[in-house]
């Protein structure tokens, strides 16, 4: 029972009579409404334009996709009735849909609705989905429960794209009514439907009466609360003001785990951390000119020590982009931690130490700790690393324009390996921060995307990995473990390797 602060409200001419943050839910609903804290706020809630991790998190409750991934990163049908069937030439994909499904405005979900969304995704001017559906040339309605995609070229990653944001289907009725303002009242198929949003504070969803699996949904609603700081989110969880805190820092997670009344769920995710070295011809740094120096830098980094010192040993040290769950992963060959070897390489390079390197890293506390750890390790073998903290947006701008020496940056990872390579190591890719330009890599990535044969793709991605490694421009450090702190009252959460907790079957015990 909280202390009700008795004050003479009437005599205080307080200016705030606005209602941000007011949820307006009844007591019964409130007691069965899950409150989840998340460190970032979604951008748009329009499937065509949404582009943040936080939006993906909310969509799992609000907006279902044609496909989803299971704990082994295998595709499973969600709004589709079965996995897609692809023609022999790889240029026609047929998708059968669930029948009897309704959007959260009561209108039917069918092939025409899928076509409406996919066409909008492909053609809307500012669409964030256009590049994901680049292979699709036409969407055809075969019958109300079947959609056929005609492709410009075979595309193995397409199915995985349909298990991500490109597979989110919006209600055509709501799209027609709201147009570009769909984000203000999004309507999809999902266990919960949109109730309200207070920018900068919280987003509320309420159980949908139209959801096809509504009997399994036990919560009356979900409120996502945006709490940027992990320690503050942990304190909110401990005080009972939130029931689950997503994406906790490892130190907070470890501390929370030792307390009664709480549990910490772990997700060994597909996200990874890497260090990009600028190797553009015009970079003009010692590192950009000498592969030996870059190798020395990598040899100076002790991945296990980094994990222990910064992340309480919770991450998964690794040397490649593909996660352990991926069926297309081949065990990467790691450059061993070897400070003596690094010193020898520096000596051989002829460059007189200390070798100045500016390491750019975003301003988050943990990332800064990590940058300082890398700095200490590199300085130990003859580098003179200075850490340049920048907000992520600014850092990305500098990285994309090649105005940096080295950049410590993460990637949220993709289910299909194409999403971890195409655009990240291919020539001119928007996230190819190192500035790698190797036609052979481009060719291998394109080949891997054009075949459905898993073994062949694994072989091709192994070759990509080896060539990237040979350039010594991109060092993969570890795959992230993410933490969901929860009250012990909360049950039935499904926390998958994509790092997104699913709450559709969750419930709160008394």
């Amino acid at each position, binding site marked *: 029972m909280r202390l009700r*602060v008795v004050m003479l409200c009437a005599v205080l001419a307080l200016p705030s009579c606005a209602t941000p*943050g007011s949820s307006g839910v009844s007591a019964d609903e409130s007691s069965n409404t899950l409150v989840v804290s998340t460190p970032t706020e979604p951008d748009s809630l329009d499937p065509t334009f949404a*582009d943040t991790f936080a939006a993906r998190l909310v969509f799992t409750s609000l907006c279902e996709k044609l496909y989803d991934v299971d704990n082994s990163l295998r595709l499973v049908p969600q709004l589709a009735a079965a996995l897609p069937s692809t023609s022999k030439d790889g240029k026609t994909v047929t998708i059968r849909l669930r029948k009897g499904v309704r959007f959260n405005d009561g209108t039917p979900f069918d092939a025409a609705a899928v076509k409406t969304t996919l066409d909008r995704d492909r053609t809307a001017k500012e669409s964030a989905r256009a590049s*994901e559906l680049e292979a699709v040339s036409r969407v055809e309605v075969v019958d109300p429960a079947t959609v056929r995609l005609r492709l410009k070229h075979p595309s193995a990653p397409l199915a995985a794209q349909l298990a991500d944001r490109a597979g989110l289907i919006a209600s055509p009725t709501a799209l027609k009514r709201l147009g570009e303002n769909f984000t*203000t009242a999004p309507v999809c198929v999902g266990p919960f439907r949109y109730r309200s949003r*207070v*920018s900068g504070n919280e987003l509320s969803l309420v159980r949908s009466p139209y959801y096809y699996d509504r009997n399994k949904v036990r919560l009356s609603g979900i409120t996502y609360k945006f709490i940027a700081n992990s320690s503050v989110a942990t304190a*909110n969880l*401990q005080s009972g003001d939130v029931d689950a805190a997503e994406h906790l820092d490892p130190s907070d997670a470890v501390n929370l785990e030792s307390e009664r009344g709480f549990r910490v769920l772990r997700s060994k995710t597909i996200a990874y951390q890497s260090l990009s070295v600028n190797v553009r011809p015009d970079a003009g740094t010692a590192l950009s000119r000498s592969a030996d120096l870059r190798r020395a830098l990598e040899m100076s980094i002790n991945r296990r020590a980094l994990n222990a010192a910064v992340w309480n040993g919770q991450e998964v040290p690794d040397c490649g982009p593909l996660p352990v769950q991926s069926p297309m992963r081949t065990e990467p060959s790691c450059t061993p931690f070897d400070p003596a070897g690094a010193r020898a390489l520096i000596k051989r390079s002829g460059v007189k130490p200390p070798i100045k390197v500016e390491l750019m890293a975003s301003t988050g506390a943990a990332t800064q700790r990590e940058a300082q750890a890398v700095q200490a390790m590199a300085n130990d073998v003859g580098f003179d690393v200075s850490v340049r903290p920048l907000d992520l947006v600014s850092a990305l701008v500098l990285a994309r324009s090649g105005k940096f020496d080295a950049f410590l940056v993460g990637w949220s990872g993709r289910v299909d390996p194409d999403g971890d390579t195409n655009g990240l190591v291919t020539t001119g890719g928007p996230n190819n921060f190192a500035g790698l330009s190797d036609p052979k890599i481009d060719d291998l990535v394109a080949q891997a995307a054009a075949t459905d044969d898993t073994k062949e793709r694994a072989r091709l991605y192994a070759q990509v990995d080896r060539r990237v490694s040979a350039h010594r421009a991109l060092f993969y450090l570890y795959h992230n473990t993410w933490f969901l702190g929860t009250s012990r009252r909360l049950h039935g959460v499904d926390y998958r390797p994509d790092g997104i907790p699913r709450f559709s079957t969750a419930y709160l015990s008394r």
Partner: protein
Amino acid sequence: MIEFLLRRTGTAVVTVVLASIAVFLGVRALPGDPAVVLAGEDPTPEAVAAIRHQFGLDKPLPIQYLDYVGQALHGNLGFSTQDKAPVTTILSERLPVTLELTFLAILVGVLVGIAAGVASAVRRGTAVDYAANGFGLFGLSIPHFWLGLVGIVIFSVHWHVLPSSGFVGLADDPLGNLERMVMPALVLGLGMAAVVMRQTRSSLLSQLGADYVRTARAKGLRRPRQVGHALRNSLTTVTTVIGLHLAALISGAVIVEQIFVIPGFGKLIVDGVSSRNYPVIQGAVLVAVVGYVVINLLVDVAYAYLDPRQRTAGGAE
């Protein structure tokens, strides 16, 4: 007086115009093309170009500025790039929240600060004085962030007497609103209370040593009445300090709103900067600038009304 008013209003208008140019250019000087930011992790050139066109970022800067001013004069500050909501609507929701927080923090600062300052001055050299001075030092040196977290741990986690975060509108649930605002107001007001305490103490001590108080004492006026007279005269300086501390309160609110997840003006600006939400940053900063200019104008007018000498040129400096 009319000439003075016209002169001051003219200066205020010029200040707002210059400030609007500074805000407009300052926002664009931030590293990071908002079109690229909005286009997401895998931006295509077409998407970036379309976004640039949608927000008018492909026009020359002077045209962008004139568009912006033209719309602002019609009460249109644009739309948030994040959720497409009108910036004026967002500001009308957020500003009152921060005003309430600031108001409550001032209340805490004034009540606690003056009470502690009076106690400290009246009981100079006693344990009360030392305790009040200790409080002053504590209040001045403790960062809001740390204090906020400690407050949450004590009052929310261990004692469960106050919520750790969130906000409800005063009109919707007055007690719920105050329940959520108590801790943020205490955290934000503590620094001000420390400043006010120290100012009250030194000012009151000075007044208590003045001739008129000695005369009053010699005439047999009782101690509480002596302190009352001296306090009234001390409050002029204290009031000035409170006024000067307002700007610090607003910047402190940025931190406090982050810790307690209060959807206020400060959090809006911080979130706007990190997502390069140009319309929101421009609108929020412009409103803040206009607010400061208007308050200063009113203060100048009030001074001129109270003291006619201020009406002459340069008199109100």
